[in-house]
Each structure stands twice: as structure tokens, then as C-alpha cells.
């Protein structure tokens, strides 16, 4: 039994020191996910706490069918989706509709335009996107979830998911261009 397996078994027995080790192993990655999905650091920290609480209180449901990281990631993404659904139920409107005409005429310039953008800046730009666009861009591009699955998870259509992604890309590009 390797160290990770031992930690997993200990976590299932509610061993606090094993939980701490797992926390230290994955906390940075999970907070990264939370920050991608949330608008502010405070929201991300809330989601991070809730996510880990769910992870440790439901550890006995982890069957080892996927890696621990994938399982945890799914819990955190589900947490973000739940938060979105709750907010969406309360405020059933689009935060703002962007103008969709692309200001950049020549796509070949993109390569040079986007060079030198830091992760923090990109994250900051991503966080400025309306929630429904941010979620789709995160799920599809960064977490590799297909449009069919996204549509099912967000209770929308596949074409709507694709259209949101397209809009999100244009908006993000516009935001990045403001840097110049």
C-alpha cells in the first residue's frame, strides 16, 4: 500500500492528520479551480472551504474508480455549478450582453497580441466575464467537459452552450485587448 492509498484509507476513518496531509497535497490546485470559477477571492475561499468539507465528509463514497484528484475536482466543479444554479434561480437574467462583433480584424495578430500575458492577468480577465460565460469556458476549455454534458449540467441546450462559449471567447479577447 503506497502513501496515498494509506492516506485515503485513513481519511475514510476520519483521521484528522491524514485529512491534513491530503489537504496540503491538493489545496493549491483546488483553490486554483475555485478561483477560476468564482468572481472574487472571497467567493473562491468560501467555495474552497465548502468543497473540502464535502470531500472529507463524503470520503467513504470514493471508490477509487478515478484518481483522487479527478474525484475531488468533480466535487469542486459541482460545488461551483450548485452555486451558479442557486444564483440563477434567484436572478434569472444575463448580467450583460456583450457586443459580439470582433474588433480584431486580423486573427494572425493574436499570437503577438497575447504574448506575455501572465496567468494572474488572464485569471483576472476570466473573472470579469459574466458567470454563465465563465462557467462554460472553464468547463469546456479547461476541464474538458463536452457541450452535451455541459448542457445537461446547466439545464440548457447544446447549441446554447456552444453559443455561450463563442460569446465568452469574444468577450475575453476584448478584455485582453484592453491591456494594450
Amino acid at each position, binding site marked *: 500500500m503506497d502513501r496515498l492509498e494509506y492516506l485515503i484509507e485513513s481519511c475514510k476513518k*476520519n483521521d*484528522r492528520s491524514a*485529512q*491534513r496531509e491530503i*489537504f*496540503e497535497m491538493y*489545496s*493549491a*490546485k483546488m*483553490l*486554483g*479551480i*475555485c*478561483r*477560476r470559477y468564482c468572481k472574487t*477571492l*472571497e467567493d*473562491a*475561499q*468560501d467555495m*474552497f*472551504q465548502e468543497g*473540502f*468539507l464535502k470531500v*472529507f*465528509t463524503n470520503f467513504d463514497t470514493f471508490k477509487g474508480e478515478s484518481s483522487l484528484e479527478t474525484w475531488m475536482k468533480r466535487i469542486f466543479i459541482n460545488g461551483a455549478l450548485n452555486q451558479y444554479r442557486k444564483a440563477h434561480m434567484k436572478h434569472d437574467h444575463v448580467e450583460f450582453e456583450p457586443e459580439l462583433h*470582433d474588433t*480584431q480584424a486580423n*486573427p*494572425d495578430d*493574436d*499570437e503577438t497580441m*497575447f504574448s506575455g*500575458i*501572465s*496567468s494572474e492577468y*488572464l*485569471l483576472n480577465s*476570466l473573472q470579469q466575464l459574466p458567470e454563465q460565460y465563465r462557467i462554460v*469556458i472553464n468547463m469546456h*476549455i*479547461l476541464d474538458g467537459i463536452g457541450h452535451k454534458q455541459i448542457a445537461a449540467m446547466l439545464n440548457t441546450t447544446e447549441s446554447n452552450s456552444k453559443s455561450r462559449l*463563442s460569446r465568452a*471567447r469574444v468577450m*475575453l*479577447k476584448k478584455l485582453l485587448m484592453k491591456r494594450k
Partner: protein
Amino acid sequence: MNKEYNISKLLKQNLEGYESFVDAGQWDVLSARLNAYDRKRILLLWSNVVVGFIILLLFSTAFFNSTKTEKPHSKSMKNNSEKTIVDVSPEVFIPNPEKPIDRNPKNASTNPDFDQSQNEDHSLEVPKGSTDKDKGVISEMVEVPYESMNHFEKMFMLSKIPAFSFEHPFTISPPLPLPLEKSEPLSKNKTEPINGKWELGIMTTPSVANKILNSDKTNGWLINRDFFGITEKSEKRSGGFQSSFAVQFNLNSIWFLQGGLTYSEKRESVSYNHIIKDEIIVSQTEKRLIYNEAPRIQWIKVSGSGINKYTFIELPLFVGFKHKINDKLEWRSRGGVSYWRLIDKQGTKIDPTILTLNNLSDSKDYTKSNLGFAINSGFYYNLSPAMKFLVETGASMAMTNLTKGSPVITKPYSYGLNVGIQYIIIK
């Protein structure tokens, strides 16, 4: 290569597997939340056990009561007794002082005063299986003070003829002529008689007391990363007691309402021994605490020990039920909400942000009015007809947050063994 591909590529390059710096205090907050979750789970488990037990008792009480009222004996008894009330005519029963009535059915044929049909009509058959208590209800009904008797009744008493004679094993002779209004409760005696409408009681409860600490959703970020760890280590023992004066109103032979006044104390023994090594900057804009390691010379030692005491006056409002086990013993369960008034607090408490020790009595971070709930269940033993001795288990917990304006949520709870005396004051 199109523009969409570039955005995707850019995002993947920069944010796929993106890691963010995690504040060391995050684990402490999570650890405290996990501890609180564990405690809640245990409490929930026990409350489920108690609720299950109460439901079981309710069902068993309902079951036993239904089987008791369905007995055919009881029905015939009721019919007979009602008949006795209606059919009794004072003239029939006026005894002849000169000639005592022979009530023995064996002598019916020889005794001209003894009318067999009259005996059949008015006699009350005591069914097999009926208790002395059933008879007692009847005898209680015919008890009339000597002063209020009329001339013939007094004569009857003087002739030493008993009001009831039990010569025949299953027959009670007709009762004395009495004003009908005195017999009124008889038709209501379908269930067991209520001992008293109102009961007063005093009880005291030594208990195990503690509190659930959690972070407040809005101000939780103000909690120092070391706070929960220090608190966990500093609280050595905790306990408490409560003394209650209870007033109980019996709605019927099973259900009752209870109110009263409770004085309760919750205590914790604390011992702080901590060194503050960080210089803390509160960033209101970012809503986080920034920790800078202070030079050794600026380290501050926080130490102290003592007992923290929280005193409450509680006003409970309970609903409960009782199940009679035998003549002496009954089981009672009660539960409901309780208003808690914090009247005093003494000791020291640690500031959740800067970790210094403050005087509890000076602290304004406490809500005076709180709401809690409590459940109790146990045995009541009849010491005398008017006095009961009780032993029961009880648990109570605050529903509202005791601390206000603090980033820490505090909800005290306690569980223990009630011991007390209860008096029946109004019959």
C-alpha cells in the same frame, strides 16, 4: 490558426492546472468546521435515537390505550353505570329506619322489602377483570359529608348498613339516593382519572455542557488562523447545572403543557498558553488577514487560566406526554423551545482576530436574548398521591448565536440527568 484556437490555447497554457497560494489559516478553519460537523453528527445521531424512542413510546401508549377502551367489559360497565344514574329514583331507596333492608339476594324470596327485579335493574355488575380502581370511582361518587345528608340518610348511616355491600361476589347493591349532579363525572370516566390538572415541580440537573464554535459567514475571514487550535487546546473541562421551577397543566391523562423558570450555569475550565509570533494586518479591502512574522523580540506570550461561567435564566415552553407503567411509576417525555436570557458572564476569552485575552464581563459581543430547544425523558415515581420523584435525562441546545458582532458563532449545549420533586397542587 483562428482566433478561437488562440484563446483556448492561451487559457490552457496559463490556467490548466493553475495553482493558487493557500493561506495557512484555511486548514484551521476547515479543521474547526470538521470538528463541528462531527459534533453535530453525534448530536443528530442521539437526537434521532431520542426521537425514535419517543415515537415508539407514543405508538405503544396509543396502542395500549386503544386496546384498553376496546374491552367489551368496559362498555357494559359504562352502560350499567349510566343506567344506575338515570334509573335511580330517590323514593325507591328511602330506607325504612325501623326495618333495615336485607340486601342479600339469597334472602330475596323471604324478604318482602327486597324486590328481585329492582335488584336486577339497579345492581351494578362488576365485570371480571375490572380493577379496584373502577369500584373506587363508584364509591367515591357516593361519598357525601354527614352534614349534608337528609334525615333518612343519617338514619341509614346510624343503622350501620353499608352503602355498598359485597355479599354477592359480582354484585354491588344499589347506591344511596344522592343528588344526580354529584354523579356527573361517572359518564366521563372512559379513560383513567386525571390525578390533578396542575402540577408544580422543582428539579436540578447536573450536566455536561459545551459549545459549538463555528465561523461566521460574513466576518469569518477575521478569524486568526491559530484561533480554533488554541481554543481547542485551552478548553480543558466543561460542565454545568440547572435548577428549574416547573408548572405543568395536564390537558388529559396523557398530554400536558409545561412552562416555568430555569436558572442555568454553563462553565468551562480554560488554560491559555500561547505565543503570538505574527504581526497581523487586517486588510478590509481584500477581506483577509495578512500575517507577517514578527521579530523574536516582539513576540507576545498569552497565558492565563481559570473558569469561564455563563449564567442564564430560561423560560421553557414544553409539550409532553406521560405513560403510566403501574400505579407508582410513569414515564414522561417532554420537549420544546426555551427562551434564554444571558444574565452574567465571567472569566476570560481570547480575541479571535488578534489572540489577546479579554475580560468576559467587559465583552459586548454577546446576545442577551437567545432561543434554544430542549428534550427530556424519564421516570416519575409517586412518593405520595400528591408528590412525585423524578429522574430523567435531558438535553438542551441554543438555536441562535450567542455571540454577536464576532466572527465566531457560539452555540452552547448541555446534556445531563434531571433529579427533582413534583407536586400536584390542584385536583
